[in-house]
């Protein structure tokens, strides 16, 4: 990708990235948290969170992105998401069924409503975001390796 060494793209791209990457991350988090009252949800939000890190990585090179989210942290978040999701499902057993919606439903259209659904959204977003980031990193590293070999 990079024309001038390993350290990322040109100054314009870097500046714009610095301004937008936080907004993208915030938008992803917003989509996750409001998944049960408006369009969006765990998948879309998770992918956007992953995209914000990928954006950082494309613009600044991989070191900058790893400083924010190292690979072990990514794998930790992925496992954390999976375990959170399964825990919610298993807690449902107390209420009678696997995946039963055991929390109080609350008042519709509020942020804190709909029982387990927001929690599930958060879990799924962790999982999707970290998982996609891991896939991308693996592919990029593979490519860098093969270029080095040539």
């Amino acid at each position, binding site marked *: 990708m990079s024309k001038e060494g390993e350290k990322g793209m040109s100054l314009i791209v870097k500046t714009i990235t610095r301004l937008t990457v936080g907004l993208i991350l915030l938008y992803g988090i917003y989509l996750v948290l409001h998944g049960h*009252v408006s*369009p969006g949800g765990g*998948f879309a939000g998770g992918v956007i969170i992953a995209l914000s890190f990928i954006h950082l990585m494309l613009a600044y090179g991989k070191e900058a992105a790893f400083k924010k989210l190292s690979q072990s942290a990514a794998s930790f978040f992925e496992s954390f998401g999976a375990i959170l999701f399964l825990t919610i499902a298993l807690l449902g057993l107390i209420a009678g069924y696997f995946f039963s919606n055991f929390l109080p439903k609350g008042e519709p*259209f509020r942020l804190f409503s709909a029982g387990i659904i927001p929690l599930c959204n958060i879990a799924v977003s962790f999982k999707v975001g970290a998982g*996609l980031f891991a*896939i991308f990193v693996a*592919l990029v590293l*593979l*490519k860098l390796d*093969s270029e080095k070999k040539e």
Partner: protein
Amino acid sequence: MMVYLLCLVLFCCGLYCILRKRNIIKIIVGVIISEYAVNLFFILTAYRIKGRSPIFSTGGDISNMVDPLPQALVLTAIVIGLATTALLVALAMRIYEKYGTFDITKIRELRG
């Protein structure tokens, strides 16, 4: 009816690409196009004339919402498609690394 047919034509474009093209990236492109077509077909079957999106709002009536179930299923199908595509791309890149080409007529160690 006509809409369904156009959608299936899109699917067949992808299928043609998978069956006839001799380049790995083109094959992946074909797979992606077919996936799109299938997802579109699913959403098309859910549409209701003059329907509204399946999100409740205060005071709105719910009688003419479109079918929410296919939308949920398509969300799942999209992510599954993404996972498959990522794996295919990883395989393709490894193949490029080993053989130095994307052309499958040159990648023939195994015989039929």
